[in-house]
């Protein structure tokens, strides 16, 4: 922690106020949710490690299965729930990742705005359809 913070958190000394870290940080956004994007990206990443290993292994195990075998497998409660959780983690992770890419490479304001909205809505739509399909197979 820097010195000014320890001794004068509100930085009331007019002689140093304008050169302080606090002065430079004011107006640049909340310090409370700034790391939220970063954190959720990590939480979903950690969740996706076992979930994707499970997905690849399961798909391998069912590579030979016909439609009926797959429908029965996907319809098992544990499989349907795992698939739904996987889709949630995946599309949340994807939404955050694609957002960063748009923010980094798209600089025209209107295109950027449209792209960011599109990323969120497409991810949400895919999540809704995928989770519905998983649950449908379980409750059919």
């Amino acid at each position, binding site marked *: 922690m820097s010195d000014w913070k320890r001794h004068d958190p509100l930085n009331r000394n007019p002689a140093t106020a304008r050169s302080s870290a606090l002065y430079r940080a004011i107006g640049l956004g909340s310090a409370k949710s700034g790391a939220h994007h970063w954190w959720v990206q990590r939480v979903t990443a950690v969740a996706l490690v076992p979930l*994707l290993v499970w997905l690849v292994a399961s798909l*391998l195990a069912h*590579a030979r299965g016909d*439609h009926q075998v797959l429908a029965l497998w996907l319809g098992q409660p544990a499989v349907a729930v795992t698939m739904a959780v996987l889709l949630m983690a995946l599309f949340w992770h*994807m939404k955050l990742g694609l957002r960063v890419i748009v923010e980094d490479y798209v600089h025209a304001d209107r295109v950027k705005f449209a792209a960011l909205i599109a990323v969120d809505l497409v991810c949400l739509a895919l999540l809704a359809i995928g989770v519905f399909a998983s649950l449908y*197979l379980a409750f059919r």
Partner: protein
Amino acid sequence: MTTAKLRPRSPDVQIYKPQLTSVLSIVHRMTGVFLSLGSVLLVAWLVAVVDGGDTYAMVERWLRSWIGLLLLLGWTFALFYHLCNGIRHLAWDLDFGFELRSIYLSGWTVVAASMILTVLTWTLGLAVLE
């Protein structure tokens, strides 16, 4: 002001020498985008299983065509790469492996691991399909 604008912004991709670190970083993003397209297939596949019949037969036919298999191979590698490099990122978040030596070592490990896992998966997959 004009001269200031013309100066290259670093790292300028046209003159900047590619390094393992920068290449792996951009490949992480590219595989992420490619995998996003794969997620559409995952959802389409689930819907096809729900729908059954002709829809499923169509998706299955497409998946087993050469273009489908080629894309699946690409998605397999992209998935393993993104997974392995993602674990590398998580290790960095825990403050492990930041020394230059470790960064290169983990980088090459990611390259090797994702290739080995891809080959292993397809060997197993094709053996199951035999």
